[in-house]
């Protein structure tokens, strides 16, 4: 029997309505109690001045294994998750080959266990080979442990296939995560279409490419009763579509990345491909709409779309470089600095979007410190100021647009299934 007492921290557990100073008592990998009581424990963690919350979950990461292990592995990605204060991640299936079978789903879980750091949950491909032509074996992958289904990286363009995916996955009570993008409108675009793309002479991606796909999918979700989760929404119009869908009772949820609530397309003026991602950085009013969407609950989740790329692959002409940035090790600091600190959302709301909300969407019995729950806990210093140093990341890649930024709010330690892991090596 192992016991641990996390003492005197500011415990925030939105799922249980807890928000105050308390002790968290853990036994054999489960939460026993949260409260004033301080039961005798084998080990004690002094959390005075720190926030103690349910283990953070990032439901949208790319771990590149198998296929591009030089950019990231399930082990290195898990280490990055721990360093960033995340106890669980959901891995997108756009690996090489695509994660579209039960065996591959189980491989992801196995590699996650071998790494022994964060919980790694596989998201299975919607279509065979992510080709967007016919359904992959969703039922088999469900049995193997897939928590959701997505062709992320590419959209499910064919409306009939999307309809089938929503109907079929609902049978297993799993959502379809859509990378919302009309490929024809997207064209050969490499940044947001607008004033800046016109000035720079770079091919634009219109906001309508994203919005029109979300509009279509909300209609299909309504028709099928399936659960649509719109990944990384980035525009005013997308937020409006999701808001209207929710108001109409459609099962639609949505997520936003930290770069979409902090950066605008003005950054691309440097032609630095560290600002190239898909969806692209949008305009100021879009950033405002993302913040507003988080505040009013239109956007359920903050997920970073961690997309590692080798430096030599990324250091190209802007239009030639691949899309994507990494985020696991900066998300918490960005959320605290740019959402909580200025008062856009409460601390409790911020934690909700990274714990109980993604847990509910992925049907995970996690995201809470309720008695009996898995002892996944994140402990962070909400006031600690630190400077992002991409060179020191646990991730194998360095494509981070926030390198050198000063952030407030730093993860200190996590518990994964009761096991205490520091977010940084002791100096």
């Amino acid at each position, binding site marked *: 029997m192992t016991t641990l007492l996390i003492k005197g921290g500011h415990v925030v557990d939105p799922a249980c309505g807890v928000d105050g100073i308390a002790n968290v008592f853990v036994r054999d990998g489960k939460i026993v109690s949260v409260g004033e009581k301080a039961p005798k424990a084998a080990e004690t963690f002094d959390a005075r001045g720190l926030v103690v919350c349910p283990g953070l979950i990032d439901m949208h990461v790319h771990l590149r294994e198998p296929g591009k292990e030089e950019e990231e592995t399930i082990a290195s990605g898990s280490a990055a998750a721990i360093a960033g204060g995340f106890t669980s991640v959901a891995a997108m299936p756009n690996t090489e080959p695509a994660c579209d079978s039960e065996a591959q789903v189980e491989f992801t879980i196995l590699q996650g266990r071998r790494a022994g750091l964060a919980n790694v949950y596989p998201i299975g491909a919607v279509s065979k080979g992510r080709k967007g032509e016919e359904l992959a074996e969703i039922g088999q992958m469900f049995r193997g442990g897939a928590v959701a289904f997505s062709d992320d990286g590419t959209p499910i363009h064919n409306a009939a296939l999307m309809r089938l995916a929503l109907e079929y996955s609902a049978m297993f009570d799993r959502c379809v995560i859509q990378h919302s993008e009309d490929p*024809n409108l997207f*064209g*050969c675009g490499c940044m947001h279409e*607008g*004033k800046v793309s*016109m*000035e*720079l*002479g*770079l*091919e634009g991606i219109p906001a309508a490419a994203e919005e029109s796909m979300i509009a279509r999918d909300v209609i299909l979700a309504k028709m099928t009763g399936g659960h649509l989760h719109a990944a990384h929404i980035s525009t005013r119009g997308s937020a409006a579509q999701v808001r209207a869908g929710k108001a109409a009772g459609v099962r639609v949820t949505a997520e936003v990345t930290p770069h979409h609530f902090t950066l605008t397309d003005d950054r691309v*003026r*440097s*032609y630095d491909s560290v600002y190239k991602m898909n969806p692209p950085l949008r305009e100021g009013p879009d950033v405002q709409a993302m913040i507003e969407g988080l505040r009013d609950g239109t956007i359920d989740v903050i997920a970073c779309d961690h997309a590692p790329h080798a430096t*030599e692959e990324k*250091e*190209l*002409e*802007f*239009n*030639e470089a691949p899309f994507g940035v990494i985020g696991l090790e900066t998300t918490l600091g960005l959320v605290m600095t740019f959402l909580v600190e200025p008062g856009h959302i409460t601390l409790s709301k911020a934690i909700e979007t990274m714990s109980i909300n993604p847990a509910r969407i992925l049907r995970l019995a996690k995201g809470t410190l309720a008695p009996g729950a898995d002892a996944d806990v994140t402990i962070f210093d909400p006031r600690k100021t630190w400077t992002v140093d991409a060179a020191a990341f646990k991730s194998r890649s360095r494509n981070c647009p926030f390198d050198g930024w000063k952030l407030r709010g730093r993860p200190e330690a996590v518990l994964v299934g009761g096991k205490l892991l520091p977010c940084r090596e002791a100096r």
Partner: protein
Amino acid sequence: MPRTRATTPASKPAASSSPAWSSRHLLGLQELSADEIRLLLKQAAAYRELATSNSRKSALLKGRLVVTMFVEPSTRTKVSFNLAARRLGADTLDFAAGSSSLSKGETLVDTALNIEAMAIDVLVVRHPSSGAPELLTRQVKSAVVNAGDGAHEHPTQGLLDADTILQHKGKIEGLRVAIVGDILHSRVARSNVWALTKLGAEVWVCGPATLIPDELRDFGVKISYDLDALLPSLDVVNMLRIQHERIKGPPMFPSIREYARLFGLNAARLHTAKKDILVMHPGPLNRGVEITPEVADGPRSVILDQVSNGLAVRMAVLHRAAGFAPFSTEGKA
């Protein structure tokens, strides 16, 4: 917003004499002030005589190496830069992209670093990717001159177009100038828009709605889809070609025939224009599409003057890139 990095030696203003250049690099005209554009045009005027002479040569750039790296086909611009460099006494080297490592998978930056290792003074770059010259400024110590990048800018073309208008009209301020054709994909259009709006012209763009970015309105540019309505009021019309190589999706207008009928400049149309209108074209011409031969070769055409003026303008740009103060004739940097 100035996008030139102040970290490389090439970014430092040359001499302390006034007026001074803001940088040795020339990446685009959007980041230059109206005063600096005027200064470049004056420097070009100072070189006009020398530019057209085969018998006399300046020694200003003696012992300097100007490298042209064209990663996209070009005839007149490359020749013009080479000749401009030689008339200033520089050594020139053409780094032909087709025969270079760029076709063997080496990255742009690696190639540039290798050229850099050969101690060059000015790197003149043409590249299909917007922003490539700017990326190079962060890697090489030499001055970088943009000879056209993607759909971004073609600053020396913008300058020589302004120079040609000045030469024939004596001024730019107050003139009504239209750029007609594929504005969306055109770096020439952008450089013209920045230069001419800064110099006080009333700038119009005209063409099919699918090839005109609405965002230009934010910069005071006026938009027309009706060449016949616009033409009679113009002082200058600059005809562009369709950049077929940059159109990747479905064709952006129904047919060449319809395009020529709506936006081509022919003799009948030109008849409705002012008698002293200037007809310009950056080349290469698609005769019979955006311009008919009798107009291109007719009395209102200044197309060949543009080519000649390009030489003086590029001498001015190389003068600046080599680090000499404006109007300096001494061979010291």
